[in-house]
């Protein structure tokens, strides 16, 4: 790759915005991989729409991170010119699409969290984050509804769809603990009301997931062993492959536009 990575001055606010932006960009990119490959045309459109919503959210958050950082970086350099270890997204969102059931379950676990998260963030003391939250919440509410309806239909569908959905739930479960991750960098933001405590969302998330999985006749995993690391740049092997595709053009032809 020809273009070197940028350096980022990760103040707590910059880091906070980048973590959420990276979630949205990486999951949006994953959904874009379905374009032209979904099980049916209607779902091809639905997944692309959700992906576009997420990439739109990522842009706003990157722009805000750039403003908060106040250096030469902008939304494009955050997306295209950071290496794997500089990405701050959840491990959940970088997991490969797998089959349709896995993509849907991944979306459901994420949306069930982030919809409640954006709703809570609408009362952030940071006016820009509150505005982004208000816009994003309407989108995530639909993502949650769509993915939950599909989880129910796949789980309570045929033997084959049930088997695949259950496998996806079991395999992705260990990545759900990181949704509630917070660390020292968040402390000051929590104190002044910029951020909300993710623990305040846990009960709602758990009850939503329990209800939907029960309706879907899917077993909720008992394991409480959770994988983490994405928030501090320790990613699974999958993210590097994703970024090599996402970044190849800008790395090879810096500043290319069309």
């Amino acid at each position: 790759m020809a273009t070197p990575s940028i350096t980022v001055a990760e103040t707590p606010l910059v880091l906070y915005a980048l973590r959420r932006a990276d979630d949205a960009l990486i999951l949006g990119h994953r959904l874009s991989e379905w374009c032209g490959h979904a099980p049916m045309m209607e779902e091809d459109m639905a997944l692309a729409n959700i992906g576009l919503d997420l990439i739109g959210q990522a842009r706003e958050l990157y722009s805000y991170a750039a403003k908060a950082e106040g250096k030469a970086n902008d939304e494009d350099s955050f997306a295209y010119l950071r290496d794997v270890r500089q990405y701050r997204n959840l491990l959940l969102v970088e997991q490969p699409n797998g089959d349709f059931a896995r993509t849907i379950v991944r979306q459901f676990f994420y949306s069930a969290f982030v919809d409640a998260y954006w709703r809570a963030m609408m009362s952030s003391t940071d006016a820009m984050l509150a505005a982004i939250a208000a816009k994003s919440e309407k989108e995530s509410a639909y993502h949650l509804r769509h993915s939950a309806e599909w989880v129910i239909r796949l789980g309570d569908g045929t033997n084959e769809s049930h088997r695949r959905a259950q496998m996806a739930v079991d395999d992705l479960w260990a990545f759900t603990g990181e949704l509630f991750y917070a660390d020292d960098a968040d402390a000051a933001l929590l104190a002044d009301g910029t951020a909300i405590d993710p623990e305040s969302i846990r009960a709602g998330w758990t009850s939503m997931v329990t209800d939907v999985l029960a309706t879907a006749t899917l077993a909720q995993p008992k394991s409480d062993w959770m994988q983490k690391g994405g928030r501090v740049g320790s990613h699974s092997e999958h993210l590097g492959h994703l970024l090599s595709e996402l970044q190849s053009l800008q790395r090879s032809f810096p500043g290319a536009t069309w």
Partner: protein
Amino acid sequence: MTTPNIQLWEVFIRSRNGLAHKHVGSLHAADATLAMQAARDIYTRRGEGLSVWIVPSNAIVASDPADKDMMFEPAMSKIYRHPTFYDVPDEVGHM
């Protein structure tokens, strides 16, 4: 990919208050809930609508193209059914 078991639905969208729902196309979905979501995703993504109706395609009774002459031909010669023989006062404006 074929989807032999999936029901076909017709989609109607009302673009503004005061207008009628208008047929915009069809889609496949397993049930009414997913059909509504698919209609939203396929037909309203550019802000086309305020309201969506979906109807199972097999609930629609359609005229037979073979009956075209019997159904529609007789109306062709009856131009007096068009309200074009009246003078509309200017004060009425656009009708």
